């Protein structure tokens, strides 16, 4: 291990150089060929195209694959095995020839695994998913079937208007469809509300807390009365979730970050709450956050349409009647959701689509609602007077949470368009929120740090003041 060591390093490096350059020689041509194929590179602004498509649709029926013909093994990577299998078992009663290859995957690893599989040229799952955060990026990949085109011919007009842009790729094609609507409110612990606000009734409470200024004032009192042990939110991230969701203006126009004032506004609010001592410091989705559902120290939690059955009840299973959901100060927001689409190189497109079609446009929609409490975003289901009365929930003290979310909150909801930068922006937001929480920086510093860090994650970003 003396001088020859150095020589070997030099040798390896120079071999690599030569090899790389010679490789480059042949790869360049390939790249050129590929380039033509990828020429219509994704652009961000295509809402016009969208509308055109909408108009020429309508006459064609959405494709329903023939149960006798659809067959094969459908692969899916997913993170809710129990829920999915409930649906799938019902589905195979209609489509008996379709088999399932279920691969359990943590949702945090989904984008990574898709990305690396594309890069390595590996097979993707036949049914593609897109959670709200990585969705914008996933939609820029050329992996989705165009659901507007033959043979799918999805009738966009049957879907709730707001979900169409959420599943549209940058070319303006419908790539995936949300399987549930996610209007969200605030869940709270009724006994705490009763103790500190004098009422546990959701409507009265909403009336008591019409805006965030009042909310903060009340929060300070709660803090005082409880001797500092009771927080309004368990974490700054929960507060951010609600506040940022209530300002659903688009973040980007191409590579331009517009509406920086939204960030300014929300940073100001969360810093205000932080300073007032309203926010505890349990990281969202961490064990301590989960376990806080059973304690008496945190009042409010963000709660989307999937929250009651997937978050609150599993984490506080023995407390029937302890929880309620209300309209947050200054209104509802949209939180979560997953689009479902078909991989464009799948060998079992008909079977994959058969499942998605069945869950959205077929009888599966009812199974979703009855078994999992998912409300599928199909207009006709809620046309006229939809009867929410079967959904009175004893766990929520008899409150009809579905009615609150879907009837009261949903109609006025705006949804922020997804972009390929969402993940990166979230990363930066997380960073800054932690700085607020841990170091107590001011709202102004938060905004400056946000602006300074963003170009590191998105090199071509342009921040419009």
């Amino acid at each position: 291990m003396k001088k020859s060591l150095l020589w070997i390093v030099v040798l390896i490096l120079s071999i690599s150089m030569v090899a790389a350059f010679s490789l480059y020689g042949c790869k360049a041509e390939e790249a050129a060929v590929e380039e033509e194929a990828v020429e219509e590179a994704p652009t961000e602004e295509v809402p016009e195209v969208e509308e055109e498509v909408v108009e020429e649709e309508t006459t064609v029926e959405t494709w329903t694959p023939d149960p006798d013909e659809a067959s094969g093994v459908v692969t899916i990577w997913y993170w809710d095995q129990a829920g999915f299998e409930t649906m799938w078992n019902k589905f195979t009663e209609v489509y008996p020839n379709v088999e399932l290859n279920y691969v359990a995957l943590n949702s945090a690893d989904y984008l990574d695994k898709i990305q690396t599989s594309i890069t390595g040229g590996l097979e993707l799952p036949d049914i593609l998913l897109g959670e709200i955060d990585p969705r914008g990026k996933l939609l820029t990949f050329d992996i989705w079937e165009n659901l507007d085109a033959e043979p799918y011919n999805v009738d966009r007009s049957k879907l709730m208007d707001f979900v169409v842009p959420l599943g549209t790729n940058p070319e303006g094609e419908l790539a995936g469809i949300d399987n549930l609507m996610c209007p969200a409110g605030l869940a709270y612990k009724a006994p705490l509300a009763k103790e500190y606000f004098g009422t546990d009734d959701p409507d009265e409470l909403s009336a008591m807390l019409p805006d965030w200024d009042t909310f903060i004032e009340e929060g300070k009192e709660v803090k005082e009365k409880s001797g500092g042990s009771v927080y309004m939110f368990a974490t700054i991230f929960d507060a951010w979730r609600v506040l940022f969701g209530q300002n659903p203006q688009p973040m980007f126009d191409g590579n331009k970050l517009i509406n920086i004032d939204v960030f300014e506004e929300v940073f100001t609010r969360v810093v205000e709450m932080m300073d007032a001592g309203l926010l505890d410091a349990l990281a969202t989705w961490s064990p301590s956050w989960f376990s806080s559902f059973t304690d008496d120290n945190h009042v409010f939690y963000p709660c989307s349409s999937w929250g009651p059955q997937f978050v609150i009840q599993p984490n506080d299973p023995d407390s029937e009647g302890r929880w309620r959901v209300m309209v947050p100060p200054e209104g509802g927001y949209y939180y979560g959701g997953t689009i479902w689409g078909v991989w464009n190189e799948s060998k079992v497109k008909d079977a994959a689509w058969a499942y998605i079609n069945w869950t959205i446009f077929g009888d599966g929609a009812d199974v979703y609602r009855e078994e999992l409490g998912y409300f599928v975003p199909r207009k006709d289901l809620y046309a006229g007077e939809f009867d929410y009365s079967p959904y009175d929930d004893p766990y929520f003290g008899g409150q009809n949470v579905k009615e609150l979310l879907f009837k009261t909150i949903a109609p006025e909801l705006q949804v922020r368009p997804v972009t390929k930068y969402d993940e990166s922006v979230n990363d930066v937001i997380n960073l800054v929120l932690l700085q607020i929480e841990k170091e107590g920086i001011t709202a102004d510093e938060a905004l400056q740090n946000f602006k300074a860090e963003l170009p590191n994650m998105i090199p071509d970003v342009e921040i419009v003041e």
Partner: protein
Amino acid sequence: MFKGVRKWAYIFIVPFFIGYFVFQLFPNLYSFYISLMEWSGIGEMKFIGLKNYITLFTTDPYFIKSLLNTAAIIVTSIPLTIILGLIVAVMLFDEKFRGRRFFQLSNFLPYIVTPVAVGLIFNYMFDWKAGIINKLLINLGILKDGIDWLGGDLFFTRFILVLLLVWQNFGYFMIMYLAGLSSISPEIYEAAKVDGSSKINTFFKITLPLLKPVTLFVVIISIIGGMQLFDQPYLLMMGTARGLAGTAGGPNRTLLTVMWNFYDTAFGPRMNYGLGAAITYTLFIFIVGFSYVGIRIFKGRDKEL
């Protein structure tokens, strides 16, 4: 030499080198090729020469920081591990000592446990609000409020990582030193005793210099391993909150190591494979460089080692 024997030497090494070529050299060369490209992993590649490497040292916001973080962690954890490993080895180096095997085994245990488990456990133990350490300290009246160990505070958070690394590795060092101690001839100690050298004096003047090869070995191994540090900081930070799209490096990127930066650059939202490959190649050069320097520092003064 025997006839026809040499041929067998080549036959014996060929499988290794074929395996190396197929499973490592080719992928590594491919990465080098990528490092000269602007490539997101998807779509076209664009040849940009050494631009990625230049970027690392000029405009890239995280590379230098991650390098300094890694260096800081190595520089604090290696000496501590050495000291602790050496002390325990010296204490255990006594054939008559009955509990020796038990202590050896239990001190080595952390080295063989799955990093995933280590990350989860430490993450839980040092959790600000729910962690057992804070709860114990508060219950015992030592603290009034819990310390936010993993909150990105430069001191505390690095302290916990260093603690984890020392905890995990000192057993390995201990075993190395035990072997080194047993290879020192007892006569040397006898001679020292005759000369009237005190125990402490003997340790510093005789034992320690004789253990130099061991120290050199563990230092080199630790530098090579430490420069590639990824699992431990990643799992320590992400252990329990994987659902939350965590910031690479944890709060304030306090624990952003070079390899973590590589994974985040290539596989994270930035999807910059070219830059990622450049990071690892540059790291390789640093590892070779540091190892070389490490060897020089230890070997340079007395040539006979």
